[in-house]
């Protein structure tokens, strides 16, 4: 995003500079050119200023979390052990229970919401006409605006209050699905709309049926964009805390059963250690935060790689 903006700006500035130097002969033109050059500089300064301003919190966060959390991550125990039996005043233990919980819940959520989201987007772009499509589109908009705590409470009301089930990892996944679907639908929809109609028409002209056109032409063309959208949704979901506080209380032991008992995750681990004043727990909080950031970063990189190799050769 940023790189493309810079590219356009440098392109425009390079195209405006030559006239300014050429117009030096005529005073009137020179005056105008100086005005333009000034505006150009101003715009450049504002743009860079905004860019740096936006960079400040990002770098700040990364620096704070990184510098406070990195030393625990260097310990093999962090990646191999859980927090079982470790109290706030003791050092040691790891985050493997929370990492596993976050990954399992994230993948389960993605497994449910990606097909639903992509199929909904295909419907909206390729098939949807008339009232139903409008209703679906409107509903997705509403779902986008649902605060995460509301999604959590809704599933709690459904899962616990109505069905009298226990709070388990899968209930968390359901709440996260509610949050992930609209992100996937919206981004996929935008990507599908970007696919040039000529491609579809060419495909039809060759006698390819609609479903095959979508499968073989439209989706591959939009593939990298769709993957980016899915990853954005996944990143949002993996860092989500509110539904987890309601539906997925923290536990210090490894628990990989989605349908039996509580499941620890990185956000709830951070939340648990946040309330502690003792140094070992505080250190673990920063380390867990850094782990979460790294996890999302890794997923993003993996997605980039997949979308690069998966996209249609131009």
């Amino acid at each position, binding site marked *: 995003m940023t790189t493309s903006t810079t590219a356009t700006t440098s392109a425009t500035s390079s195209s405006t500079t030559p006239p300014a130097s050429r117009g030096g002969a005529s005073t009137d033109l020179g005056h105008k050119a100086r005005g333009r050059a000034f505006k150009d500089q101003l715009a450049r300064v504002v743009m860079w200023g905004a860019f740096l301003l936006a960079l400040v919190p990002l770098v700040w966060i990364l620096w704070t979390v990184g510098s406070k959390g990195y030393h625990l991550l260097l310990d093999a125990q962090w990646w191999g052990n*859980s927090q079982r039996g*470790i109290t706030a005043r003791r050092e040691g233990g790891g985050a493997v229970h929370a990492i596993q919980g976050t990954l399992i819940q994230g993948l389960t959520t993605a497994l449910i919401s990606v097909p639903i989201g992509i199929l909904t987007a295909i419907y909206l772009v390729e098939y949807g006409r008339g009232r139903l499509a409008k209703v679906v589109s409107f509903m997705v908009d509403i779902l986008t605006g649902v605060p995460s705590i509301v999604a959590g409470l809704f599933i709690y009301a459904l899962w616990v209050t109505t069905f009298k089930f226990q709070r388990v990892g899968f209930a968390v996944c359901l709440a996260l699905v509610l949050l992930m679907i609209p992100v996937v639908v919206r981004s996929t929809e935008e990507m599908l709309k970007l696919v040039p109609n000529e491609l579809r028409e060419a495909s039809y002209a060759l006698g390819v049926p609609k479903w095959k056109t979508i499968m073989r032409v439209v989706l591959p063309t939009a593939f990298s964009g769709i993957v980016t959208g899915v990853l954005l949704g996944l990143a949002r979901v993996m860092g989500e805390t509110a539904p987890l506080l309601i539906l997925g209380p923290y536990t210090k032991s490894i628990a990989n059963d989605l349908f039996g008992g509580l499941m620890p995750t990185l956000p709830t681990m951070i939340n648990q250690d946040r*309330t502690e004043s003792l140094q070992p727990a505080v250190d673990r909080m920063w380390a867990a935060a850094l782990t979460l950031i790294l996890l999302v970063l890794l997923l993003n990189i993996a997605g980039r790689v997949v979308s690069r190799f998966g996209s249609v050769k131009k």
Partner: protein
Amino acid sequence: MKIQRFGLLASVAVVGSLALTACGSDNNTGATAGGSSSGGSSSSDCPTGTLNAEGSSAQKNAIDEAISAFQDTCSGATINYNPTGSGAGIKQFLAGQVDFAGSDSALKTTEKDGKIEADEAAKFCGSPAWNLPMVTGPIAVSYNVKGVDKLVLTPEVIANIFNGKVTTWNDASIAKINSGVTLPSEPIKVFFRSDESGTTENFTKYLNAAAPSAWTAEPAKAWTGKGEGKEKSAGVAGAVKSTEGGITYAEWSYAKDNQLGIAQIDNGAGAVELNGETVGKAIATAKADGEGNDLRLKLDYATKEAGAYPINLVTYEIVCSKGKDAAKSKLTKAFLKSFASKETQASLEEIGYAPLPDEVRTKVAAAIDALS
């Protein structure tokens, strides 16, 4: 082509997570050898399974230690405790989401909002729910004044400090009971809990009982006095630590962890220092308020007994006397037994809780034996 790519991505993810799943370890005992005190006495009674509990944050540090000790001896058992607050704990207990609840106050037997907590619990359990006192946490009046290592306070003076009538450390009322101590003339900065807390409730109960003329506000979970609000015990303790002239009320463990000065309390029978023994003495004088094995305690905050530290908080575990699930109640029983054992209780003093006095402990142990 695209489908295969997606399949590739999915399979990499699945294989990766399976690989991660396989290599995690729950065994942390090697790393903590020597740090834990295992209650070896109950090692014969080790059911396996998972228990979930939720409630009071005041007992969190204590129950964490107890869980750690129990899990060291019983590696097949997992116990989770979520410190979400007493009210939340009772709610989840009544909703059947947790196996037992931790609470700063016993289930209420009087009607509130058309419901009686104790009856609700009995209805849910199908048998009476018992309150078992398990952890006693003294509340320390903690201060940070340079050069003052020993400070004696009476209930009236505490009340006047916390309602803003006494504003400087060398006030005549403080100087009178602290002869020989050089008090600075700096202002007193009061910090209170901005969240609703059982600690605030017990502290104001004490002020209301021991100094009724100076503290007239009703005891409540929300603070009604003066000062500056900070969130949670860690917040107030941290604020006092970083503020010269600060004073607050917090659980003993927080005062200890932050190395704050702890005032001695003079309830009328001489100054009493805060330690395990003086707290035990006060708890021993508490009257039983429940029937049979329902061991709710009524503390005498205005106690004039010599050597008894009066500002205490008793936290309970709330359990069904007849459990719904046989395996779970067996595990609950085993865990609570280990929690109430002499070894575990004694190990709590180090982290700022007072062990249950022996006469209370034997009663609790008898009640746990009667659980089924």
